[in-house]
């Protein structure tokens, strides 16, 4: 086994164990942290695939932003994990079904034959797993820049899907904000715009008083 393979298996195993711990661990804060570990291991695997941009963005967006807010909420809410575990047995068959469906989908969609690892296109069948030992894809040249290539692909060939995704995200943001926004009249808060508009004559009253004996 080469050094690269050792690293791959190390992080792959770590990722799977962490992903499993996300759903088995009792403490919700620990579960969120295991999810963070899963993301970081995934990002290492992506780095090994020379997808540096995606790997860094995964850490930046999911670890740096999404999971921080997630952890924030989990810590504040003090979730009772026992009540969430009720009815586990009831949902197991559905869960297994969904997991299987996802598994099959992934094999079909992200199978090795889509990445030029094989001469002939494989068909789904009993021989699917028979052909093993794919050769390593040739590593990219030293001056290859994953960031630049990705930018080029997104802003030329895939411009419309990219823009559509952006608009969908914008709609989602507006929907989330309008759902969560509510005007509360009973809270005591300061309006900074009003605060800075205050004039002297609004607040200050000069009273002339006679000197007392």
């Amino acid at each position: 086994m080469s050094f690269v393979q050792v690293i791959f298996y190390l992080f792959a195993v770590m990722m799977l164990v962490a992903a499993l711990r996300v759903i088995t661990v009792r403490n919700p804060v620990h579960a969120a942290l295991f999810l963070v570990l899963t993301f970081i291991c995934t990002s290492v695997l992506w780095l090994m695939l020379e997808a540096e941009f995606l790997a860094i963005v995964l850490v930046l967006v999911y670890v740096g932003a999404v999971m921080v807010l997630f952890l924030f909420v989990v810590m504040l809410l003090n979730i009772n994990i026992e009540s969430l575990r009720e009815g586990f047995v009831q949902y197991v068959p559905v869960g297994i079904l969904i997991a299987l469906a996802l598994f099959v989908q992934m094999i079909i969609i992200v199978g090795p034959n889509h990445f030029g690892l094989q001469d002939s296109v494989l068909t789904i069948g009993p021989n699917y797993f028979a052909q093993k030992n794919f050769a390593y894809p040739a590593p990219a040249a030293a001056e290859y820049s994953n960031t630049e290539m990705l930018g080029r692909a997104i802003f030329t060939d895939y411009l419309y899907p990219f823009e559509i995704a952006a608009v969908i995200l914008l709609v989602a943001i507006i929907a989330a904000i309008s759902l969560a926004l509510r005007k509360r009249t009973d809270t005591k808060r300061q309006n900074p715009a009003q605060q800075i508009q205050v004039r002297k004559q609004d607040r200050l009253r000069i009273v002339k008083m006679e000197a007392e004996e």
Partner: protein
Amino acid sequence: MIDQAMQSVLGWWQLLPGGWRLLLWNTGKILLVMIPLMLAVAYYTLAERKVIGFMQVRLGPNRVGYHGLLQPFADAIKLMFKEVILPTNADRFLFLSAPVLVLGPSLAAWVVIPFDEGLSIANIDAGLLYILAVSSVTVYGVILAGWASNSKYAFLGAMRSAAQMVAYEIAMGFALVGVLMISGSLNLGHIVHSQNGGILHWHLLPLLPLFFVYMISGIAETNRAPFDVVEGESEIVAGFHVEYSGITFAMFFLAEYANMILISALIAIMFLGGWLSPLQGIVPDSVFAIPVIGLLLGHGIHWLIFKTAFFMFNYLWFRATFPRYRYDQIMRLGWKVFLPITIVWLVIEGLAAYFKLPPWFN
């Protein structure tokens, strides 16, 4: 080239297998950055006490060594040998790993900092993103420290820091978008190169609002005064690290100062031309050819250090002069002032790029 140089110094270098040579070489590079950095952190703590002391017409530490110059080592030795106290019902593992999670990223970010022409540990194309990603991990250490301590003050500090760091990270990120728009690259070395050609070509002038946003957000991001509500010693004792003692506390301390130096270096690199000399284009080129004076006035690592030191001094100056912000004012500044400023400036920058505004966008 590297192999030949090392072979001439160490006779047994060629006998090592290739992987080991690479490992040793990289470890050496890391040590070359890490040791000066740690010394800088140590003396930055002394500088802070001295500078603030002088600003408040006091002397500052002056007992240990000549004018207190050995004070950082005295502090380090004291903290190392103090007992690490675990609070009751603390989450032991997370409590002890939180300082590591804070210190680790603030040191790891130095990997991509270019100190001079081609002088960085790793020259990666997504360097700017790498720094953003790595520094966004720091917030975990702070949150976990607050949560794992099983203390109300620490938890309040952690909550404050989570909200504050997330808010200012966005403003910082947008300021960086401006930098990458003008330089056309995420590579920090290329960003410095795009500012070549004299003091007018630096990003400082075209990105002036983003420069101020980045500088102020940097102070908020490192939880320094006047945005230090996370620690807020007059409100919540010491915030997230109230339960830490000894070496674990020292690690939070080190991380804070390493982060301050990092942000200062980043401002110098992204807005003030990094290692580029400000005299370029002002004095005739023949001056740079004079043996010693040319070396001092020309491009070089000393300019980066000088610019970094200026922003490091600013941190201390702000702490000595500004009163602490109120918490809601901090959030307002981040979300309602800085974020709109950066977005508006990105639009203006886009227009400038479209009309090829000289000398920055041609």
